[in-house]
């Protein structure tokens, strides 16, 4: 930092080497980095020496050993006979799963609430305010315990489960619902879905260019929906509609078949969404307020409806104020997902904790947790920065 101001200052005559502020600045910075690096190296060395003297194993060799503990929820096949490395992967995927869904849902909820806080309707405005002030001001951990206890205590046992819809059962084991049995047609449907999205993006670009040139509008919403949903449906029907559902049924203690959402996962997702949503609502509100009122008036004068005004004029300008703090919210949501350990959802930290205790290698375990969260956070930052650049105002 010192060099910035130093180089900016005028330099009438070239001073001697040591008195040259630029060289001195560089020297100080090298010295500082050197001290930090030396301290880091000292810490690592001392840790290794201490661990060795206390006869505590170190290194990452344990990752190849059999984990031998069970994991309640997993997106990939896992059994206690798998390795610690695979158990870590299960935890990582669980973390990404809940954080990814949480980010999407919190953004939707927060944006709606942020707009609602500026509504001209008194009731909507006040409800949004109560939501924000309540959930923003209660510690997340308490909220998680609250949601978890609510889901656990209010629902009946699996044998007396509530049947909401045929096959959709709610009990204190979570929500179970039927899922289609895997069929080769599904792969083609997925392909059709992706093609539909690509086609919709293409059509959207074309229609925007045409509108810019000729002013003619195009019913993009209907065509886009038709492409994205229609193409897979056509494939599905063309293949003879092979739909066979895997129904959940009570077998022994629990439901077998179908798919289940556990109370732990649901509590964590609801907690993260509602908590982070309240912060996002304030960010969105601030972003909208940052756009000058004249813009709204000008849009009205052009004859745009309130919805169009928000979508076409206000939000695009508000986004450049919204995106940077939003990035921080996404990062904190991801990191807050580690509170899962308190309510028994097997996220990365929960599994790393178990691993550390079985192997006793706390230093490696903590290092892995830190590295993973750092990597996730940097990736989120990267994408948000790219997006920020894309929505930034282009000065003409």
């Amino acid at each position: 930092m010192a060099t910035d101001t130093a180089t900016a200052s005028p330099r009438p005559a070239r001073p001697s080497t040591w008195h040259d502020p630029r060289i001195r600045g560089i020297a100080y910075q090298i010295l500082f980095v050197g001290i930090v690096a030396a301290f880091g190296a000292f810490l690592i060395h001392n840790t290794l020496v201490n661990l060795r003297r206390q006869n505590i194993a170190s290194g990452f060799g344990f990752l190849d050993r059999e984990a031998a503990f069970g994991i309640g929820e997993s997106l990939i096949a896992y059994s206690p006979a798998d390795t610690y490395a695979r158990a870590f992967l299960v935890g990582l995927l669980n973390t990404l799963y809940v954080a990814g869904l949480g980010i999407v849902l919190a953004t939707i909820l927060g944006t709606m609430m942020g707009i609602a806080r500026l509504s001209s309707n008194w009731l909507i405005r006040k409800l949004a305010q109560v939501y924000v002030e309540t959930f923003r001001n209660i510690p997340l951990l308490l909220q998680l315990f609250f949601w978890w206890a609510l889901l656990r205590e209010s629902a009946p046992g699996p044998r007396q489960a509530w049947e909401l819809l045929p096959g959709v059962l709610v009990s204190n084991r979570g929500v179970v619902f039927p899922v289609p049995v895997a069929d080769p047609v599904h792969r083609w449907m997925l392909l059709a879905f992706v093609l539909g999205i690509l086609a919709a993006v293409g059509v959207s670009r074309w229609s925007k260019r045409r509108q810019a040139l000729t002013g003619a509008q195009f019913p993009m919403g209907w065509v886009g929906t038709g492409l994205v949903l229609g193409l897979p449906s056509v494939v599905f029907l063309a293949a003879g509609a092979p739909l066979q559902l895997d129904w959940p049924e009570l077998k022994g203690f629990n439901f077998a078949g179908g798919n289940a959402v556990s109370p732990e996962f649901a509590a964590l997702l609801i907690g993260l969404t509602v908590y982070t949503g309240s912060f996002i609502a304030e960010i969105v509100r601030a972003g909208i307020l940052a756009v000058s009122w004249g813009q709204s008036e000008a849009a009205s004068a052009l004859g745009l409806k309130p919805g169009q005004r928000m979508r076409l004029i206000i939000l695009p300008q508000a986004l450049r104020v919204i995106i940077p703090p939003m990035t921080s919210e996404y990062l904190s949501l991801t990191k807050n997902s580690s509170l899962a350990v308190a309510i028994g959802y097997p996220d990365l930290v929960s599994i790393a904790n178990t691993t550390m205790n079985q192997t006793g290698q706390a230093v490696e375990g903590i290092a892995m947790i830190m590295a993973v969260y750092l990597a996730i956070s940097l990736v989120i930052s990267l994408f948000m920065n790219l997006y920020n650049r894309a929505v930034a105002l282009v000065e003409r």
Partner: protein
Amino acid sequence: MIKKLWVLTLVGAMTALGGAARAGVTLDKVKAAGQISCGVPTGVAGFGAPDSQGRWAGFDVDICRALSAAIFGVADKVKYVPLTAQQRFTALQSGEVDLLSNNTTDTLQRDTELGLNFAPVVFYDGQGFLVPKKLGVKSAKELNGATICVQPGTTTELNLADYFRANKMEFKPVVIEKRDEVLSAFFSGRCDVYTNDSSALNADRLSQAPNPDDYVILPERISKEPLAPVVRHGDDQWDDIVRWVVYALIEAEEKGITSKNVDEKLKSDEPYIKRMLGVTPGMGKALGLDEKWAYNEIKLVGNYGEIFDRTLGKDTELKFERGLNNLWTHGGLMYAMPIR
């Protein structure tokens, strides 16, 4: 969680910056501090929990008190550090506590890779299953497909997976760290089964269940759980002291020395008792303690049988049978090495 990560990070920093553990260091440190820092459970009825006046009491706590009596001549020079199963080993390794008296199972991996030494076993336990009676289950073999509440970081978690694998059964673990939370999850019906050491199951059933009679412990014991106090590798003198303090408790019961009659036994003619109680000097010096070490612990805390009856056995609501924890002369496994 964040707090715990901080604790772990701090402990990591202490490992990074800390000095060496050499023989004799722990006793010097304890004497300089004027108290023993003792890692105890975070609240298990009978083993270690604060009583109504906030004083720590229980079986594990009495081991710490016996050690304090042997070293300081008074039983209350102990700082109790409640530690979860996950925190305890790091706390011991880093020197935050001087020993663990924390229902810790003695296993090969802990003894070697974690750099720990186990004192003699003070309680022989085995892992069991607690289920609601209305489930109608009679044996652990019928638990296929069950959802099972378990605490992480214990041998319990591994034994559970081993047992179900060995019997070709499936289960769904719900892993929750805090004991209160895991119990409230089980008693609210989130899990079909709660698994832990059977002694802890019994204590939790009696002290935590809404109605203890609605729950039953299944007959199977799926593991051996020899629970023992733990010290660090590398300080043999401290290891010896903890070892012989435990042996003296057991030996006192075998020789019929209790807190009530220990003063009379000082006048005993038996050479063995004279040596043990310090009437004939030598044993205390060998340990680096006062010659009255064994006398003090028996006088102030009681012998093994008295501690057991007072905290877990017939004088308590828990009403544990002595079973394997009886003296070898009464068909149990408690057998102290000779004090000579």
